[in-house]
């Protein structure tokens, strides 16, 4: 099929989410709820978690959207996101949430699902020497604790 | 008019009821004037065969005190019932089980163990328990069988009247005797005592809205002699106990223990007292209320001190244990 030539680069198009009741509240969802100890459907999408998040600019999916995607059964999108790794567990979202739910715990739960399958984000062996020498011990350990299994 | 034929018997009891007859002092003569005593083991020598020899319904009145604790008690209750026209449960034990019925909250095994093995003064290295029957060279001898449950008299035989108390006050006895002598008996099934509860006779002052802030035991306070004992934190069974004693205990600063049993329309004295108590425990604060409730020592024993054989539920140890 021939297309007329364009003089701009088209952006990546958005896909439509095909929702299914099978995924909403499924096993993975329950696992995430169990690991995090939070009730995902308590989120009412006020957005205050996103509004306060210091790492929002490094996230491809905004914090409040993480809740929403989980409610919609789109765990895969969450698992593949940059956001779960960007989250620092600084608890700003949790202390300001009007429903008292803690996104940091959900982020950790999703990370755990991955790192327990050896899908580590950071490989401890590949950290350059100069960084190893430079940063404080707590930075290294917490980095490995959060981003690898 | 012919003289009344009177019998008195004691079953599982302390003997206080028998003694209470003597509390009538010189009025005893009045009783003797009206009645001939045909059976009274504590005072006179009778044998069971003397009773067995009586015609059925020979006795006009039998004052039966004490609870039914063993086979002998039961046997005598049934025997005397047969020989008496009117059976009177005399005293708290016969009426409601009384102090012996506190045993209903434990088991026969535990009682025997305590009595024959674990008390400090026991010397019983073989751990021998009394047996209902024992073979001896001379032949088999039997002693009454110790029951697992203490019954009130009316559990065993029909009873016409109840005279409650531990022991019944002499005045009540005299009232009963007079009623019998004059034939002005209340309907069968009546209790010869007050209609209302003890608070009616109690001389102490009560406030408009009684409230309990904590529960104390009698040794922990010296009551001030004026204020309602319940409001001073002592568990006084007055509100749930039939009147008729003239508030004898209260007058010497002891809270009522409930020996007159429940009021007329009440099934369960302990439960009713519990309900009353719970209604005046400071209740706007759940935690505080629970604290007060939990501070009560031996709640069951306090609420059912005399009613162990008269509760709605038959007391039975912990669930699963054999009765």
């Amino acid at each position: 099929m021939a297309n007329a030539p364009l003089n701009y680069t088209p952006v990546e198009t958005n896909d439509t989410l095909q929702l299914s009741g099978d995924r909403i509240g499924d096993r993975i969802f329950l696992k995430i709820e169990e690991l995090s100890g939070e009730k995902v459907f308590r989120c009412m999408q006020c957005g205050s978690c996103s509004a306060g998040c210091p790492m929002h600019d490094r996230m491809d999916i905004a914090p409040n959207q993480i809740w929403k995607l989980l409610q919609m059964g789109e765990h895969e999108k969450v698992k593949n996101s940059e956001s779960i790794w960007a989250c620092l567990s600084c608890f700003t979202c949790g202390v300001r949430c009007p429903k008292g739910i803690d996104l940091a715990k959900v982020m950790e739960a999703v990370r755990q699902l991955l790192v327990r399958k050896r899908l580590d984000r950071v490989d401890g062996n590949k950290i350059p020497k100069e960084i190893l020498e430079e940063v404080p011990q707590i930075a290294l350990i917490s980095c490995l604790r959060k981003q690898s299994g | 008019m012919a003289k009344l034929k009177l019998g008195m018997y004691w079953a599982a009891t302390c003997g206080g009821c028998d003694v209470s007859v003597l509390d009538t002092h010189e009025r005893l003569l009045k009783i003797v004037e009206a009645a001939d005593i045909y059976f009274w083991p504590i005072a006179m020598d009778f044998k069971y065969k003397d009773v067995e020899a009586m015609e059925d319904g020979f006795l006009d009145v039998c004052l039966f005190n004490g609870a039914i604790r063993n086979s002998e008690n039961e046997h005598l209750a049934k025997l005397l019932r047969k020989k008496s026209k009117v059976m009177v449960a005399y005293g708290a034990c016969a009426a409601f089980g009384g102090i012996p019925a506190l045993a209903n909250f434990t088991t026969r095994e535990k009682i025997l163990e305590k009595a024959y093995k674990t008390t400090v003064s026991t010397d019983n290295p073989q751990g021998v328990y009394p047996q209902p029957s024992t073979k001896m060279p001379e032949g088999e001898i039997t002693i009454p069988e110790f029951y697992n449950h203490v019954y009130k008299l009316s559990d065993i035989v029909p009873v016409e009247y109840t005279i409650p108390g531990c022991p019944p006050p002499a005045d009540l006895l005299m009232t009963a005797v007079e009623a019998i002598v004059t034939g002005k008996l209340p309907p069968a099934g009546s209790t010869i005592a007050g209609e209302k509860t003890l608070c009616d006779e109690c001389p102490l002052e009560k406030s408009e809205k009684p409230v309990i802030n904590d529960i104390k035991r009698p040794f922990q306070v010296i009551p001030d002699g004026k204020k309602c004992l319940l409001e001073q934190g002592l568990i006084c069974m007055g509100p749930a106990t039939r009147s008729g004693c003239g508030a004898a205990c209260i007058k010497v600063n002891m809270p009522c223990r409930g020996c007159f049993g429940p009021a007329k329309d009440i099934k369960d004295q302990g439960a009713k007292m519990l309900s009353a108590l719970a209604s005046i425990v400071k209740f706007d604060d759940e935690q505080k209320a629970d604290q007060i409730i939990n501070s009560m020592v031996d709640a069951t024993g306090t609420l059912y001190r005399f009613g162990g054989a008269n509760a709605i539920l038959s007391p039975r140890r912990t669930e699963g244990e054999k009765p």
Partner: protein
Amino acid sequence: MFEPKMICFYCKWCTYTGADLAGTSRMKYLPNGVVLKSMCSSRIDPQHILEAFKKGADGVLIGGCHYGDCHYVTGNQLTHNRVAMLQKILPDFGIDPHRLRIEWISAAEGAKLVKVINTFTEDLRAMGPRRSK
């Protein structure tokens, strides 16, 4: 399977209405209980509870309004006190205090009522029949 018999005392304003809500919502629950309605849970006399056990109930449930929400202001607090005290002495009568349960169920909590009835029934099944009746 052992089918326990239960007496359920509901207050008219909260729990009874909550049970009605469960009905109008067509929720299903186990049929082991018979409901006796009173105006307030505070009308339930400890004697009634003992009588129920005497007559063979395996469990007694008392349903009232939530704390602070009683139609009669403080009635449920009295009920709480009485039940708490009664639970203390029930073992002396050979009754597991867990056979007496008190739950605050509001008129809006049909789902809670269903859960309470079902779990209570299950718990009673697990406890088995009462040894002494």
